[in-house]
């Protein structure tokens, strides 16, 4: 997924190289609260982008070609092998789906009308360092889903989504210029139906 962006960049005639090196010398303690907040916001924006993409993919008004394109963009937000772990109020056990499979199911939902809304609330955990030096955190958001079938019957639920975010400092060279950037990738998502 990531390679799509990289491919695009490599097309630029004057892009001579693209080097991605994790800057391991970056100690957690060196990050000021203001920078931490900027990184938190960056992570939150990726989650908001995902929310938006989910709404577009689920929307029955979205043309197939457009939904497919957006699905690809949504897929680019995720680290490989990311999964959704879904449970409902009736079945507490977690059912696993691959992220792409989840999007496909969302697009194919057999409702005449689908309405997906997101609550304003979100919660961002601390970013913890993993053994490999990447930071990992969890952003929690809430989604309201309403699907109405042709005969007017509707299904509604509210789900809590706990979304894994990986944050890594990377370096790249574009147009002879070295850019250090924060690479934010989404990972596994735990989806819990919540009591209204």
């Amino acid at each position, binding site marked *: 997924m990531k390679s799509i*962006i990289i491919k*695009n*960049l*490599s*097309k*630029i*005639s*004057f*892009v*001579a*190289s*693209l*080097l991605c090196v994790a800057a391991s010398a970056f100690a957690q303690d060196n990050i*000021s609260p*203001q*920078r931490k907040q*900027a*990184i938190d*916001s*960056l992570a939150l*924006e990726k989650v*908001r*982008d995902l929310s*938006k*993409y989910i709404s*577009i993919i689920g929307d029955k*008004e979205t*043309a197939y070609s*457009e939904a497919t*394109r*957006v699905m690809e*963009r949504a897929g680019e937000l995720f680290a490989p092998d990311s999964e959704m772990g879904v449970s409902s109020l009736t079945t507490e056990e977690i059912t696993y789906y691959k992220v792409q499979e989840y999007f496909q199911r969302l697009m194919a939902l057999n409702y005449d009308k689908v309405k997906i809304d997101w609550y304003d609330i979100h919660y961002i955990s601390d970013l913890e360092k993993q053994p490999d030096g990447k930071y990992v955190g969890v952003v929690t958001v809430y989604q309201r889903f309403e699907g109405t079938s042709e005969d007017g019957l509707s299904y509604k639920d509210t789900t809590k989504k706990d979304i894994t975010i990986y944050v890594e400092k*990377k370096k*790249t*060279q*574009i*147009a*002879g210029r070295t*850019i*250090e*950037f*924060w*690479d*934010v990738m989404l990972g596994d998502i735990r989806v819990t139906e919540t009591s209204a």
Partner: protein
Amino acid sequence: MNRIKSFFNLAAMALILSAGLFACKGSKKAADASKDSDQDKPVVVIKDDQPEITEPVERDTNTREDAKMRLDNYFNSIANASGNATAANRNINEAKALFASGDVPVFIVIHQSTDGTKDYDEPTTIKDYLNYLKDTGKNLNNIAAVKTNSSGKITELELIRK
């Protein structure tokens, strides 16, 4: 006098251009690039601290300011198209015309420390960024800097979080 200045400017441009073209003929393997990737640029980089040659630079500055404003308008229109894909796509195509190509790199500064250190989001391309504005319906960034080529097309764009 002005004519002489213009001539010098043109000559400098031609030199840079030919150097760029020459470099383009050479190997462009990614691994070699870090050595001197500037050579690979078939563009004129206009810096704010460009020396004496006043008039053309002024004109360029104006062009750039104009491009910035037009671009910002496009960004807003695309982000605010709210589901009107036709309008958004038309604006995307018009905005793209301001760029040397759809693959022009876009850098987004998410934070700037007091010591000047910049934190960036992952670099993207203008084509992807315009679609991003359309899909997410939000224009979170101001235009910080643009670089243009000799034909006034944007070759590099730096944005900064509002």
